[in-house]
């Protein structure tokens, strides 16, 4: 069953057609990559999925509910978590606090005046956060300021924060952009592990072919604002149209 359905989505910026009739289905518990050359409309599509942009026409359904026009926090509450191109974490807070926030958000919703509680007394939340840090191998860094982490650790923390909310769909926007090879491989391993251990759907927008072919189960190729093909990785690799549109450009 498709968990995310993008139907006939079009978006124009003035005279520029950024997206034209995009149709896309992301199957539940799959890893789906969206690739394409620069300017193919990947970012625009992503922004339509997370409520940052309103498409001119078409619909985006998550689990049969429209996400269009919702605020980011509402989209998150539906079960979509987003990982950003440059890790978005709470730099001035400690690693532990970074992990506590999403868990409190899960428990208390978008807003609650829980000023009468004391963090350290909320044992359940603290335990969950500790478990998640353990899972991310970051327990030893819990008192560090998040801003002082290495790039790879920041990414790890961000993914951990997303996972702590048990999202049904994890959206990743070029998760390895600007990373050293070793950090890239670590991130790939982490994502593989997540895929194996959890009931989770992963949608990944990526430029790096190495990442895409190591992870994806299905690939959609966007070119000039419209899906060119959608298939399993093996077929994408050999597809001449894709070569022309994308790999040709890279060569």
């Amino acid at each position, binding site marked *: 069953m498709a968990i995310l359905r993008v139907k006939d989505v079009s978006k124009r910026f003035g005279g520029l057609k950024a997206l034209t009739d995009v149709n896309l289905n992301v199957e539940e518990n799959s890893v789906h990559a969206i690739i394409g050359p620069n300017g193919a409309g990947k970012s625009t599509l992503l922004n339509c999925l997370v409520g940052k942009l309103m498409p001119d026409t078409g619909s985006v359904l998550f689990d049969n509910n429209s996400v269009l026009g919702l605020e980011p926090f509402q989209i998150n509450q539906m079960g979509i978590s987003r990982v950003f191109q440059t890790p978005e974490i*709470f*730099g*001035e807070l400690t690693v532990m606090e970074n992990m506590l926030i*999403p868990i409190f958000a*899960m428990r208390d919703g978008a*807003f609650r005046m*829980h000023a009468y*509680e*004391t963090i350290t007394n909320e044992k359940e939340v603290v335990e969950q956060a500790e478990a998640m840090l353990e899972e991310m191998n970051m327990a030893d860094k819990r008192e560090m300021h998040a801003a002082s982490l290495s790039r790879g650790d920041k990414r790890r923390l961000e993914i951990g924060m997303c996972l702590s909310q048990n999202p049904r769909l994890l959206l990743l926007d070029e998760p390895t952009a600007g990373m050293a090879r070793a950090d890239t491989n670590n991130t790939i391993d982490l994502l593989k592990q997540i895929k194996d251990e959890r009931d989770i759907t992963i949608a990944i927008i990526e430029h790096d072919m190495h990442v895409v072919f190591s992870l994806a189960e299905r690939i959609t190729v966007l070119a000039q604002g419209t899906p060119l093909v959608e298939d399993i990785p093996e077929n994408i690799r050999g597809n001449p149209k894709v070569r022309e549109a994308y790999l040709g450009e890279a060569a």
Partner: protein
Amino acid sequence: MLGLNKKDTSLLIIVAILTLLAPFILNPFPEGSAMAQFNAGYPDLMQRFVIFGIFAIGFNILFGLTGYLSFGHAAFLGVGSYSAVWMFKLLSYNVIPAIALSVVVAGLFSLLIGFVSLRRSGIYFSILTLAFAQMSFALAYSVLSNPKFNLTNGETGLQVYADDPQILQGANAPDLPHLFGLPMRATYTMDVGAWSFDFNAGYYLCAVIMMAVFYLAIRIFRSPFGMMLRAVKSNQQRMNYTGLNSKPYTLAAFVISGMYAGLAGGLMAAMDPLAGAERMQWTASGEVVLMTILGGTGTLIGPVLGAGFIKYFENIFSKINDNVLHSWFAFLPDGLEDAVVFLIHPFIGKGWHLTLGILFMLVVIYLPGGLVEGGQRLLNRFKRRKTGTDDAPSGKTEPAE
């Protein structure tokens, strides 16, 4: 104790001891001695210490935690004062309803202003709050003092007149602000040898309230709510994508700090039943910014220290005149004495604002953590010297860019 961890409990206890013993601590010099003018233990000044402490603690909940710099908080202080005086005029001189109303009205007023101002962030927010406060000042000063609808009594300031209703004022109740009959001005003077210590009812009321709201601030800082406020400062994007709505959090912080300001304003009126528009002027808002930053933004004790520091110097520093300086430097040869006095002269007495401005700039430039950070650095250096290790990191906790 009281749901606080050990460190916070001891902080609270230290603050409690210091405020309760303030009449002793602030009057260390014997009466009539040359240093007696540095005694700050008189009721009027002690009251101001704690009242501005409350104001700054509240401001810090907004600025220190969420990072939203308001330049209009004096408006809430002023509104609090006006509400309290109105309570005196209409009900009675009992301070409890007056203070309660000032908190409520300031809360509502800050809800309104916060709701509008918080639609923008960064410098736009600062300017919006500034504009609102200046507007309130102008309204209070002129518009709301017209004969048909005299809410503020304009330039004269709002005060209680003999023909005011005061419907609940008992026949025997004191004719000035009191707490169930105990006048705020009641002062017991204790003479010990050459020393003299004043114990003032108004001061102790303010002190007890300050301890209560300080405790509240600690609880907020340590609560998930406080953590969310720091998240607002750190990264709103991540916050929103984590399923949190940052707007009501910021608004809540704004209203809480507005209520603190209203409380401070109400207490001011309770100590001296008069409310004037100048309390709302933006320079007054600037003062609480100075206090908070000077003491240490985002720290618990910083704003209280900053408020005490500024109020102390405002009142004491400004009393030093050239005669005092000459008596201090009398040991120097005449020419040198005059030179030293001449050099120091611009910074003291009426020039104390200059000293404050320079000090404030130095703190913003070199000591973003304020006096608290300065104290910590000194302590660290001292500790390091004691243990003889020089390789410890420089104690800086600033996040990387």
